[in-house]
């Protein structure tokens, strides 16, 4: 199965598709929240629309001596990064940008989030957002290296950094089967760079909303929508790199991508409500002493298998 690059006219469609799936994830989260609060599941389904209506009707908040240009760069950075990530992910036979270095591109964009989240915290000139921004950096130090090595594993196995080749290499056997550690690390890192679930400390109630403590109106909308979009793009990438992408019987390839992404995304959303937040300062020791060595070991196993098979 070859992947073709679609004409630029399709780019808005790809963006809308990403936002559409992200909205579905937000609806699921709203429905689960409604159930846990003892209301009907359906009542929460409109949550993303209601929240959008609320925030677009709300004034932005200005703070004293804010660093406005950097703040806006940071706030817009999350959604931008999600769209840039989605650009290289093959949707069945089609992709927006068939880069020869797709895996590296994804990784480079996720590093951009270091700046985006930190700037969103730095910009308002306020303690809680700034503390939240630094917490994100502390967290990023824990997930970034394991993620980089975890992404290396599928690239080594496929012998290519092109995501289309990574999908083609999973014909018959998904990478998740023989790279479970890399898959788990990738999932955790997606949660972490989306500031989600157990890795939501930079936005947590523990710091009065953290990076979001001074964000109102469209600023808050951009950050929240950006998080859902990042989670979606991250799930789609994980599906592509480890769960066979469009590989599957009967259904067309694009539908398989959609179904697998939806399932993984739903798992992420459910996980968020069930787990408490991990304090970033307690994360560094297990991340560097357990997860990173395990990831390297995984990479060694994959490399040996590739050499022996060749």
């Amino acid at each position: 199965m070859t992947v073709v690059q679609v004409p630029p006219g399709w780019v808005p469609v790809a963006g809308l598709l990403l936002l559409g799936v992200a909205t579905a994830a937000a609806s699921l989260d709203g429905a689960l929240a409604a159930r846990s609060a003892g209301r009907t599941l359906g009542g929460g389904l409109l949550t993303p629309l209601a929240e959008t209506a609320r925030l677009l009707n709300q004034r932005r908040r200005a703070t004293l001596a804010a660093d406005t240009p950097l703040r806006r760069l940071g706030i817009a950075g999350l959604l931008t990064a999600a769209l840039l990530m989605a650009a290289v992910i093959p949707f069945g036979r089609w992709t927006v940008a068939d880069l020869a270095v797709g895996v590296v591109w994804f990784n480079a964009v996720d590093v951009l989030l270091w700046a985006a989240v930190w700037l969103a915290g730095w910009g308002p000139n306020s303690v809680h957002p700034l503390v939240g921004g630094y917490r994100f950096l502390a967290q990023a130090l824990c997930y970034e290296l394991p993620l980089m090595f975890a992404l290396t594993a599928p690239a080594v196995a496929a012998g290519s950094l092109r995501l289309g080749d990574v999908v083609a290499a999973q014909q018959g056997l998904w990478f998740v089967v023989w790279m479970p550690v890399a898959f788990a690390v990738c999932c955790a890192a997606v949660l972490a760079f989306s500031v989600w679930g157990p890795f939501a400390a930079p936005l947590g109630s523990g710091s009065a909303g953290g990076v979001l403590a001074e964000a109102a109106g469209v600023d808050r909308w951009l950050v929240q929508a950006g998080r859902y979009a990042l989670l979606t793009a991250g799930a789609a990438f994980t599906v592509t790199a480890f769960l066979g992408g469009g590989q599957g019987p009967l259904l067309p390839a694009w539908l398989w991508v959609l179904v697998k992404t939806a399932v993984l995304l739903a798992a992420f959303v459910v996980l968020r409500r069930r787990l408490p937040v991990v304090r970033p300062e307690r994360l560094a020791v297990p991340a560097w002493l357990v997860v990173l060595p395990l990831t390297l070991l995984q990479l060694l196993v994959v490399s040996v298998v590739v050499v022996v098979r060749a």
Partner: protein
Amino acid sequence: MGVTARLAARRTAVLVTEVPGWAAVRCALEREVRARGWRPADSPADADVLAVCGRPGPRFAAAVGLAWAQLPGPRARVDVHEVATVAAALDGAAAELADAPAQRRDAQSRTGEPSTGVLATDPVEEPAPDDDRSAGQRDEEPPAFDDPGPPDDPDPGTDSDDTGSDDPDPDSDSDDMDMDMGGTDMPMPGGIPLAGAGDDDQLADPDALDLDVLHVPLGPVLPHWPAGLLLHTTLQGDLVVAARAEVLEPADGSAPPGSLHGTPAGRWDAVATLLALAGWADGATAAARLRDAAIEGGALPGDAERWAGRIRRSRLLRWSLRGLGPLPEGDALDRLGHWLAGTERPRSTTLDEVAELVTGLDLAAVRLVVASLDLDTADRTAVPAGAAP
């Protein structure tokens, strides 16, 4: 009301503030917020409605006014003193939010530029109890400030029409970080001094980073925080290197309905607060529902047991709380276990002990430790106000 306004009203965010002694009203309000599908807000910038449970004293009222000035708008403020009026008050807030012409007038009456606030440590002039708080006096009052961001407005009004300084058009906001004020060497962006090297409160830093010192008050308008507690902290980085606690009093002559402490409802309330700070959304909601069931008298024992077991078994939670806020009888995790089992013993924690426990911790850990102490700020014997120096 248009479709968008109806949609927006479904997600109204409420910033809840409790005056010491009005815990029952706060619980009723939180319950009503949950039943409507609304949600609690994390900070003033996140809120549509500011709900004050109880009658705050002058300093507390000033802090509430400052928080009110930070609500971005459309905004509504409700003051609730009795459980029976909670639903009506929230109906009123919803109507106020939906009243577009009034909201527009409110927005236009707010000044453009955010202005500097005042220090929470400034001396207080207590007005007479019957003071009707004219506009001139309001400006004199030093509000304690919950949020360490640059305060917007030193004008803590009690009326929803005359306060506010949030900028409806942030483009006009000054972001000139190099603006020199008064010819001093220290740059004063927006007229506020930068965090600088402390005088006698700068601690020797083991990492030799020589971090700047910043004075940040925590509370009293802060969700998941003991009612009326004001913690003056000195920060280096995000570490609290010194702290002093005090309790802001309710208005003189008011008769608060009383505290929930020592009851099953009080225990589940403490659990809900701690879990909310620990970032466990479902656990916190479940604990709050059990609390409300206990207040009504119709507790579901099976459900309570199931949740107590789940909370006890959560490894991530144990990992987060273990070792925090050590007291002779145990740490935060032990105290959580006692609440779940109903075996906690009445303990009196002085404000000095609170300050001592949080010194040396980062801001998030401070929040967890304070929540784990389950301070009864309405109980003057357990938390003597005189403990603050």
